[in-house]
């Protein structure tokens, strides 16, 4: 485990690794994005009930998924930072927060735009929407907390603890559609069950999710490289 993590934790090795991987990651990101867009907007047939309006799913679900994924990554990094006293863990938290906040905001915005023609309302105080809004407030709170802490080392540790406490919202968001009687539809994707979506609709959705995961990984790498190059003076 330590052997696998070492290239990601050592600043110089991280910079060297990202030098090699970033061009490929950007290439795969563009391929997946183009396939997801063409598949979602053009090739996938209209939904039987929602018609062409269902195509918002190809931006809404990936943004919502990433808002949860980024938070889980932040919690893992916070845990690693606290347990092993690793600066890289705290750096991942520091540079992920704004991306997670944007994904949560976009999930709410696209959900609202989708909700208006389908439900007849821009917003409903139901379990899924409210718990996702709480996630957005959590991200904003963490950002404010980071900027308010004067002592960087203590601030990083306190932020990591805050991130771990906020982790409780993630299962609430995920299971909100099963726990409560909600207007929001059930989970679109489930790793334990075969999807009810047709392959022509499903594959572009998976491609868009993978593209946004790569987007997050690319931007996080660029931000971490910048910090490491400036503060550690690691050579390219």
């Amino acid at each position, binding site marked *: 485990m330590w052997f696998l993590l070492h290239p990601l934790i050592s600043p110089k090795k991280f910079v060297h690794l990202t030098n090699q991987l970033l061009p490929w990651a950007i290439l795969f990101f563009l391929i997946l994005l183009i396939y997801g867009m063409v598949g979602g907007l053009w090739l996938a047939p209209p939904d039987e009930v929602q018609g062409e309006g269902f195509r918002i799913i190809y931006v809404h679900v990936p943004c919502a998924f990433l808002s949860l994924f980024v938070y889980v990554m932040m919690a893992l990094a916070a845990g690693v930072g606290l347990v092993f006293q690793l600066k890289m863990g705290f750096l991942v938290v520091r540079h992920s927060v704004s991306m997670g906040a*944007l994904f949560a905001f976009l999930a709410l915005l696209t959900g609202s*735009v989708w909700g208006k023609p389908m439900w007849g309302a821009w917003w409903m105080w139901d379990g899924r929407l409210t718990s996702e809004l709480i996630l957005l407030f959590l991200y904003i709170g963490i950002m404010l907390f980071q900027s308010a802490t004067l002592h960087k080392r203590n601030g990083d540790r306190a932020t990591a603890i805050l991130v771990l406490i906020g982790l409780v919202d993630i299962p609430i968001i995920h299971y909100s559609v099963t726990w409560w009687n909600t207007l929001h539809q059930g989970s679109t994707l489930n790793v334990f069950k075969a999807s009810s979506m047709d392959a022509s609709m499903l594959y572009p959705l998976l491609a868009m999710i993978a593209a946004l995961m790569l987007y997050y990984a690319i*931007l996080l790498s660029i931000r971490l490289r910048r910090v490491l190059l400036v503060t550690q003076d690691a050579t390219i």
Partner: protein
Amino acid sequence: MMQHLLQWLRMGGYGWYVWGAYGSVFILLGLQWYFTWRSTKVNHESHS
């Protein structure tokens, strides 16, 4: 051809919603990418 394109852009009457959602996602994610890239440039210049 033009009529097919317009029909596709209308998205069966959901055009404003669909393009509004896609537009907002791509504009905001694009801006985030641009500012991340720009800050790297600025830092590289100040570093060198």
